[in-house]
């Protein structure tokens, strides 16, 4: 039995996705699609590993990555002749400083009471600016529908006191759901357990030191985050705004000055 999460108002929740426990069953992908009524991705064979979903997108809010690596004798008890195989279920990071939310000109993207980032489909007008705002490449516009979509953090389920569908469906508790602060502690404990067992390549992915200021979906990985298509130093594009507007203001003043000066120089004396 899983402990039930009792939430007080305003308490922030999170995912901790532990790839050392993931068996790659894709139950989270299926549960997510079923609960949220998302369309199928279609059958598209990639030719690399057994991952035919490739990436998160408008119709994929959970994505199980199949990380096949070189044979690594002695690591995780792999047969030295076999490729090493890891799985990790990816999801929207629900950033503390979420650029998609900041960039949205309609206010369709909002912060929920659980700390997640929620896209209101009844407000979104499909301007697609959030697509180029996400440092994790999560948000995508559905060209047929016209609107952008991403993980809802199962806000509807959370409001009803339930855990998100993916966490509920996970058979190995690789996807843990709980209060952010408790999960951070749990992640540290788990990392210690893994180290004690000799799994020295285990890493906790939680970029609190970057301008993203932390995420609501932490990951325990093996090896470098790059292998899992996770940016080692994700940056919120907000950091570029100041330089951009400064330069725009400078140019605008120069333009007006140039127009005024040019016409002053050739004043028509009529």
């Amino acid at each position: 039995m899983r402990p039930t999460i009792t939430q007080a108002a305003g308490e922030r929740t999170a995912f901790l996705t532990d790839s050392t426990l993931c068996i790659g069953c894709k139950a989270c992908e299926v549960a997510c699609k079923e609960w949220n009524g998302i369309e199928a991705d279609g059958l598209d064979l990639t030719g690399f590993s057994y991952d035919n979903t490739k990436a998160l997108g408008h119709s994929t809010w959970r994505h199980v990555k199949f990380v096949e690596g070189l044979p690594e004798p002695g690591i995780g008890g792999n047969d030295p002749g076999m490729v090493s195989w890891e799985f990790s279920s990816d999801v929207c990071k629900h950033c503390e400083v979420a650029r998609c939310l900041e960039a949205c000109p309609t206010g369709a993207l909002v912060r929920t009471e659980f700390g997640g980032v929620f896209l209101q489909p009844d407000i979104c007008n499909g301007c697609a600016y959030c697509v180029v705002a996400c440092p994790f490449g999560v948000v995508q516009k559905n060209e047929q529908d016209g609107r952008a979509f991403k993980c809802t953090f199962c806000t509807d389920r959370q409001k009803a006191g339930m855990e998100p569908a993916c966490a509920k469906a996970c058979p190995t508790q690789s996807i843990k759901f709980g209060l952010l602060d408790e999960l951070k502690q749990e992640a540290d404990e788990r990392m210690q357990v893994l180290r004690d067992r000799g799994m020295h390549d285990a890493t906790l992915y939680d970029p609190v030191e970057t301008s993203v200021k932390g995420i609501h979906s932490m990951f325990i990985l093996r090896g470098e985050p790059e292998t899992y298509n996770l940016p080692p130093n994700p940056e919120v594009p907000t950091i570029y705004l100041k330089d951009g507007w400064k330069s725009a203001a400078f140019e605008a003043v120069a333009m007006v000055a140039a127009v005024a000066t040019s016409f002053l120089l050739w004043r028509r004396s009529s």
Partner: protein
Amino acid sequence: MAGVEAGTDFEGRLEEMRREAYLKGRVDSTGARPAGSPMPVASPHEGYYRQPLLKEPQWTPLVPLYFFVGGASGSLGVIGSLADVFSGEKELAQKARLMSFVGVAISSTLLILDLGRPSRFLNMLRVFKPQSPMSVGSWVLAGFGASSAVANAADFIEAEWGEGTLAAQLRNLGRVGCVVFGMPFHNYTGVLIGASVIPVWNRRIRSLPREFGMSGLQSAVGLLELTGETDSNALNLLGLVSAAFEAWEGAELLRNHDPSLLPAKRGPSGILVQLAGALSGPVPIALRIASLFTREKKTLRRIAAVCGVAGSILMRYGWVRAGSVSARDWRIPLEIEPSASAATRLEERQTSRLERARQ
């Protein structure tokens, strides 16, 4: 990583590993891949099967066109508001005002048609978010459109009922609005794409607003010249100034050897950006200077105008396309460089983690 790829020197790699084991007492790096296996791997050097991390911009081709029309319209609004104040160019100013209004009407249409849900375009005006250039832009577009409409209403009233206080007051109101909103309207699109996660855009965050703004001014000058204003020396000077600026920006881009700027230099997107740079920089400079010394003054200025306008359009298409190319490059956001320094940094990180783990 010599010897790791399938079909390469397998025995040689084994030798290396034996030597490493002999010298250090352990082998840290990965072993050799089974020969003959074509399986791609996920690794800190290959990323996740070289799958792109970032999403490509999903704008339709109407958006670069919107960038162009908006840039020209904003600059025309400023010219239309100032030309008759600072000189007697009444007709030129009136023409610029009218063209700027047509421009703002076209650009609003383009923006709305690009939306996934065009019927919801007014949702843009339900909030104002200073931290979102898209939101700021929507309000600037609305403000500029209103100001331009007021200025043109004044011109219409004057044409129908003659000069009066109402027309004068309205024109002054429109004039102020067109300058205030025209300033951000002609260059905010540079901030819009610069403040994104697309590497080729955000590495140029300082220059994109300047480049787009001056390009907008040049296309405004070009459009006025193409509609008959080839006598104005002021316009020729403005054309020269903006072209000189574009030439400087183009040279500055070529001097910058940041590998993430390659989409703006090579490949189809690079050709577009570079062609746009030539058409809005050196070519119009040469033509405009030559026009001062020849009898074919008007023809040369018209050619310069066509080049400037074409360069301005191509520039927006080139940069947006470069953005798509840049988004597909998995290396940049994952900080995987083909250089040795990146590999060293990675190794350092791995070693320090191992040491921390051992403590």
